[in-house]
Every structure is written in C-alpha cells, then in structure tokens.
C-alpha cells in the first residue's frame, strides 16, 4: 500500500523514493480534485451563461450545505476505518421531531435544540452498538438507516408539517446579508476550520489517524479507541440532527422522507475528498474541495436540464471512480507482476524442457 502515498494524502511517513515524492506533489489527490473542479466549472459555464454569476454561488452552496455539514464528522469516522450510512435517516428523523414538537406548541428554539439532541442520541445508539457490543459499523448503520427512517415514517406517515416562524424559515432561502452565501455553508465553513484544526493539528487528530492506520497498535499506544469512536458517532448524529433542522427550515416543512438517499452524496463527498475507505488517510481540505466539486456538478447538471434521477448516475459513477482510481496503479502493478511471473514460469518450463531433451 506504500506506493499509494502520492495519491492518498494525510500520511505522515514519507515512504516513497525522492523521485516519486517530487512527482507526488503534482499527482496528489487534491490536485486531481482541483482539475476536476475546474472541469466542472467549465462545463457549468458552457451550459449556462448564468453559471459564473456571483448570485449562482448562492444556489450552488445552498444545494450542498446540509450534505457538506454531514460529510465532516463522516470524514473522521471513515478515517478511523468505520462508516456511518444512517446520516440521511438521522437528518430525516430529527427534522420530523422538530416539526412535531413545534406543531404541539413548543417554541421553535427548544424544538430545534431537541432535534439536535435527538441526533446526538441516535448517533450514540450507533456508537454504542459499534464500540460496546462490537458490531461492524456497516451492519449497524444499515440497520439504523432503516430503523430511523422507519420511525420517522411511523410518526409522520403522510403529512407535511410547516409554518415555521418566517424569520427563521428565511435562513434557508436568503443569503447572509451583504454576501452571496447561504447560512448553511457559513456553518460548514466554521465547522470545516474546526475539524481541520482538530484532525491535523491536535493529539486527538493524530489519535484518529492512528486508529485508522492500526486499531490494535493504537490501543497499545494508549489511545482510547472505543471512546473516541463512540464520540465520533455521537458527533455524526448531532451534526446530522443539525443538518435536519437546516433542511426543514430550507424547505419550510418536514416530511418523513427528507433527504432519502442522501447518504450516497455524503459518502461520495468523503471518498472523493481522498479519504481512504480503509481508514487512516485523508485531509479535510480534500473534503472541502470535494464539496465544491459536487455542488458545482449538481448545479451544472440541473442547468443542463438533466433530471435528478439521472444525476444519481453521475454521482454514483463519481463514487465508484473515487475508490477505483486510487487503486488503479496498484491494479496495474498487480497485473504486471502476474504477467511477468506467468512469463517467468513459461521460460522456466521451456528451459526445463530443453534441458530434458
């Protein structure tokens, strides 16, 4: 795996020979991402003359705000080698709880806080099952993906709840005064800085990388593996709950199926951002660029009049590409080794035959 260093950033131990390292700067995953971002923007500009106008920035950001917020804690979870597929369901359930409480006469602020707290509790359930009972996070979060969405559907099967106070509901649809940025992306920016500092400049961040690189080694190095993972799942739930609040305000209503299938986008951003699915590698910067790529891509596709259903093909393809491409060189080397060893065997067999005669 050492030969992937130049493609998968975040590794602190340079194990490449110097030639590769200097090349590595060019071939870094983030560089590829920036090229991809440039390509996407060019595509958007070619499709619509309005794409490059500053007001369009608002819509690009608005589309990915909640997804981007949920991608941050998921990044840390994937770095530790786990996964959380239930984010979109937590978003939906938190939104439903907020709306239900509001409908039953709660003031909006306590209802919003309750939604975030509920998110944290849902995340804690995931974390408990993964760390204390020792279940694989994949299975747990597929289960809770179904369970949380199911509870949301049970509580609010067919109706939509809306009517939130106008000044708050506006948060979802107007930019921050004097800028072209929606509130959700401002939250994301602040959170991204916090996450970047924590992940890349604190002992906790190093511990998270250490867990992903080798869980057992990290444990013997005195890192509280289970505790850290547990709180990461709680964090993921909490921010998903927060994203649920923002989502409900943006659409001025809550439904049980808010954000169905959004885990595809969140996971795509994280993996496209260069976080290794096997854990231990990645940067927040990569995730931020991936957010930009996905935001621009979505808006550009929409401007190109491609329906949402078809956009899933593109996003799914992007997800596959972002896990296949880093493996491509590995793949090439394996194929070459196999060919060579086959050739060597043939030579050996021919030589043996010649000797026999």
């Amino acid at each position, binding site marked *: 795996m050492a030969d992937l260093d130049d493609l998968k950033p975040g590794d602190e131990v340079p194990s490449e020979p110097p030639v590769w390292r200097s090349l590595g700067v060019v071939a870094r995953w983030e560089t590829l991402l920036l090229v991809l971002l440039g390509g996407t923007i060019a595509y958007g500009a070619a499709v619509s003359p309005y794409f490059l106008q500053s007001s369009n920035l608002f819509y690009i950001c608005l589309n990915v705000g909640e997804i981007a917020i949920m991608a941050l804690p998921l990044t840390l979870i994937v770095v530790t080698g786990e996964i959380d597929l239930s984010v979109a369901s937590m978003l939906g359930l938190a939104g439903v709880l907020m709306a239900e409480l509001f409908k039953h006469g709660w003031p909006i602020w306590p209802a919003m806080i309750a939604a975030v707290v509920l998110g944290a509790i849902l995340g804690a359930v995931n974390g408990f099952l993964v760390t204390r009972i020792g279940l*694989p996070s994949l299975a*747990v979060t*597929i289960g809770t993906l179904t369970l949380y969405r199911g509870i949301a559907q049970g509580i609010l099967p067919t109706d939509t709840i809306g009517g939130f106070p106008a000044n708050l509901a506006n948060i979802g649809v107007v930019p921050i005064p004097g800028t072209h940025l929606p509130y959700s992306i401002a939250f994301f920016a602040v959170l991204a800085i916090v996450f970047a500092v924590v992940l890349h400049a604190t002992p906790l961040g190093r511990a998270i990388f250490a867990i992903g690189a080798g869980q057992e080694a990290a444990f013997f190095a005195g890192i509280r593996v289970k505790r850290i993972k547990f709180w990461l799942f709680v964090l993921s739930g909490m921010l998903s709950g927060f994203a649920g609040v923002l989502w409900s305000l943006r659409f001025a209503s809550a439904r049980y199926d808010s954000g169905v299938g959004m885990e595809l986008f969140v*996971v795509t951003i994280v993996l496209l951002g260069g976080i290794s699915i096997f854990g231990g590698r990645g940067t927040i910067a990569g995730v931020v660029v991936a957010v930009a790529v996905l935001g621009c891509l979505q808006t550009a596709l929409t401007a190109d009049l491609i329906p949402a259903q078809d956009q*899933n*093909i593109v996003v799914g393809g992007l997800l*596959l590409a972002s896990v296949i491409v880093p493996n491509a060189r590995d793949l090439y080397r394996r194929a070459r080794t196999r060919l060579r060893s086959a050739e060597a065997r043939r030579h050996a067999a021919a030589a043996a035959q010649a000797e026999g005669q």
Partner: protein
Amino acid sequence: MTTLAEEQKVAQPRASSHHVAELLFRFRELGIVLALVIVVGATTIDNHLFLSATSVQQLLSGAAIVALLAIGETIVVVTRNVDLSIGSVLGISAYAVGVLYRDHPHVPLLVVFLLALGIGAACGVVNGLIVTVARVPSLVVTLGTLYIIRGIDGAWAGGNQVNASMLPESFNKIGYGTVAGIPYLGIIAIVAVAIATYAMRTFRTARDFYAIGSDPAAARLAGIPVGPRVFLAFVLSGGIAGVAGAIWLSYFGSVDAIAGVGYEFQVIAAVVVGGVAIFGGSGTVLGAALGALLLNTINSALVVVNVSSFWSQAVAGALLVAAIAFDRLIALRVAPVLRTRRRARG
C-alpha cells in the same frame, strides 16, 4: 435428531446458560419457526381471519419475492461481502420485462425469464468485477451501483408505466395462481430455497464461499480461487435479483421507475435475522428464507392488530439491529464453550 441428543449430552456438564446460548446459536431456524408460531398465534387470537386461506396465500406470495432475493444475498454475505444493489436490479429487470411484453405481446415465457436473468447477471458481473478486480469494498461498490442502476432505470422509464393489461394472462397467472391452495410464488420460492440449500451444503464451490467468508487469507492459502468465487457470488446474486424482478412484475402487475426501491434493506434484514453472520462464513439459505417469512408475517400482523403499516420499515430496521446484536452476544457466550469442547476432544 440424534445429533441434537448428542449435543445435549456433551453440553450437559457446562453452565446451563451456555447450553441455552449454544442451542439458540446452532438451531437458529428453530428459533425463527418458534417466533413465527408466536407471532401467528398471538395475531390469530386477536383476529381469527389472520389464518384464513387468502390471508395465508398473500403472506406466502409476499414473502416469496423477499425470500428469493435473500438466497442471492445470503451467498454474497457468506463470502463476507454485501450487495446493496439488488432492489435496483429487481426494478430495472421488472421494467425490462414489462417493456418486452408491451412491445412484443406474444413472446414466450422462457425468453422473458432469460432476459430477466441476463439483465440481473449483467449487473452482477459489473459489481463482481469492480469488487474483485479493483479490490474496492463491496459496500461502496454496490452503494454506487444501487443509485447508478436506479438512475438508468429512471432515465429509461421516465414517467411511464407498464400495466397489467399489457401483460399476457399466462404471465400474470404466475403472480396470483395457486395449486391446491398454495400460490405459485410460494412453490417457486420453496423449490428455489430447497435447491439452494442442497447446493450450498453439497457443492465444493459453495463450500468455498463459506471458507472465503470465514477467513479470506486462509482460503487463499488453501488454494481457493477467492476472486473468481466472490465474482460468482455477485453474478448469482444479480441473476437471482433479475429473475425476482420478472416474478415481482407478475405479482404486482404494473411497473414504473421506482419498482423495488428499498428492497435491499428488507432483504438484508431477512438474511441477518435468518442467522447469516454479517461477518461472513456462516448461515443458511433456509434460515434467510425463514427470516423473510418472519418479517413479512410481522408486517401483516401489524396491519391486523391495527398498527399502521407505515411502521413496517421501523420493524425491519429494529429486527436487523436486534438480530446482529443478539448474534454477537450469543457468539461471545458460545465461543468459550466451543473452545473448551474442542480441547476436550482433541
């Protein structure tokens, strides 16, 4: 049953909680049947119509499709992988069959099922190739193909729908026909489960699946072609999902772009509830099929006891989580017993 008696004799000196745990672990199918009896019994007491012929027929037919999909999913999960794309494969195959009938009403049944099988297997080939050649975790691959295949289905179908009136009577009959009171779908599922159970016990290739799931590295050292076997597992799963798509269409009678959305979660729940270890390496097709039947029965029972059917997804999720947690706890209790016994025998 002699084996059961023997187990009990050997296990007798051990702590009784271990004993119970081991029985639960080893005879998972028995546990599910017991749960089925309890659910059916309790619901029937509440409403005696629950066991009426039509109700049971509907139950069997509904469970049959999930049970079919569960066969393929079991094969994949046993190899320590997962296939999230089966719902989408079912959807696109069902739509393809619908379109085939709409455009060529007199096409023979065999061709229809070959088409469904082919589409499903093609999707399985894509999944399998990416998983085995590019060595990407199956979770990510099939999450991607889940949306890609659904997207292709959506782009192809658009807002169109194929109705039962466009389908020939012989095809619709598969969905609702009965033999001696047993629906065709139930018979198809039972036969398929019987064949798969036999195959998974007997054939060497099938045993390879278990070996790979227990320990991929050891399987490789033992000379098992891990890549080709995992690839085969995905092709089988895709092919079965494709055929299930044709059957789905005959049961529901109409198909649009969202056919089979979310089936993957029901199926994975059924498989895990049925005792197939999510870590791979153990579990039976029969257990998975019984899991499907149990899930479907609980869903129908909910409606009968006046709980809104909107809660069915929550039930599936709760059962899934409970089943993996239960398995884990049992495994923690059973592992020491098995170890001590092996030492005693050795």
